[in-house]
């Protein structure tokens, strides 16, 4: 919209809220069903869950008309450039939901044929876990994305304080590691 260039004052601030409201309530997904997750994605579009309640019932087959790419299923190495091209063809603003564990990290297919996480190819906004995610999980991811569009920042951050229960002392020469609330890599 070019609103970013304007000085932030009362008028543009309210206008930006309006734009965000409009963007949030008409997120049109691009179909990118790659595997079994796509069945659940179709189920979300059908009567039982009905994402037209959220203004996104039009699954666009053309990336130019889509705002959101739901990567549903495992991405093979051969599919990766195709996926990137579809993403590049989408118009800004655009978002990506990585649906299912295979799209998110490769899941149980930790092998040479599958991309270990679609975020190596495109920037992912929301990850929906599950194999496959239930329609409610995808709806939850969509609502998380709505919140992200509304606030324009990362939401629901993990608390970072170290828990109070300290690690017990050992006298066998092995020093236990401090308990971190989060550990990404394997401890040495």
């Amino acid at each position, binding site marked *: 919209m070019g609103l970013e260039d304007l000085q932030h004052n009362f008028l543009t601030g309210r206008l930006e809220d309006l734009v965000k409201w409009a963007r949030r309530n008409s997120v049109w997904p691009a179909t990118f069903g790659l595997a079994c997750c796509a069945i659940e994605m179709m189920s979300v579009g059908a009567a*039982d869950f*009905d994402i037209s309640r959220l203004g996104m019932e039009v699954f666009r087959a053309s990336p130019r008309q889509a705002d959101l790419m739901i990567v549903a299923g495992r991405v093979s190495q051969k599919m990766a450039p195709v996926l990137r091209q579809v993403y590049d063809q989408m118009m800004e603003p655009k978002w990506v939901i990585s649906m299912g564990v295979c799209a998110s990290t490769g899941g149980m297919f930790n092998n040479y044929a599958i991309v270990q996480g679609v975020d190596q190819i495109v920037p992912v906004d929301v990850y929906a*876990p599950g194999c496959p995610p239930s329609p409610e999980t995808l709806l939850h991811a969509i609502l998380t994305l709505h919140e992200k569009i509304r606030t324009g920042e990362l939401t629901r951050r993990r608390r970072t304080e170290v828990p109070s229960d300290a690690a017990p002392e050992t006298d066998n020469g092995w020093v236990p590691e401090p308990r971190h609330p989060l550990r990404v890599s394997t401890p040495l």
Partner: protein
Amino acid sequence: MTLVDQVTRVGAQVRSQLRFFLGFKLTFEHLGRPRVTRQYPDEKRPKPPRLHGRHVLGRYEDGMEKCIGCELCAGVCPADCIYVRGLDNPPDHPVSPGERYGYVYEINYLRCIHCDLCVEACPTEAITESKLFEFSFTNRADAIYTKNELLVGDDGRPKQLPWEDWRPGEDRFTSGWMRATSPSGSAAYEGLVQWSGDLGYGIRAPEGGQSGRRDDEATGNFLLRDSLEAHLLAEDIPFEHRGVRGKLWRARMAARRRKARAAARARQRARERAGRAAEETGQPRRDVA
């Protein structure tokens, strides 16, 4: 052209016009059917009793952790999403009743496929799966649950993280009854009450579908067919559920559901009473189910 011919021709035209509207028969039939859409953020559909959701690390009734750090769950995991490291229990204040305890316990939910093999493998019924399936992450780091987040709280309930969509009462069906096999691998096992007691819940009722003594009201079990029958086409409804027999059967089922709902409400009230009493006395809460 005779009068008879003209009448036949007009009749054929009228019939063809009517046939056009007959094409909408199915459409109008569906207008009268009950609405199936679940308004998800406002309401959830009932979950099957054995759905696999995110994990919970249990504790015994005395507050000790059940996990003994044996890493069998990590070994059996087909997606390699569990990382466990055991540590010897400190003699003066042991964490678990065993020799060791799970010192580091992490599950990556962006790899976990909820196959429940870890629950089957666990020798101490420490890890079970809840029915919580509504969660999503905005970054990959959030998806790695550490032991702090998996372990049940001091009231025996799963910790409810800000990006998870827990509703009141949903933590009730979180326990060892989700296992399909017996803890010791006995084929004759039938899902009797022989789980170790859980902090907050005590010993649970038998698992539905495994034993003749199953208790559907207590475990929340239900037949999927009953809840779907209202949406079936007439020709798809089983023969024994049509006509007067079907009416009788539906009335019986409705009465059973009413009874189950009343029992659930009574249990909820009793649980609230027990919770209040526990808060007053400072004792750990017991589930009356």
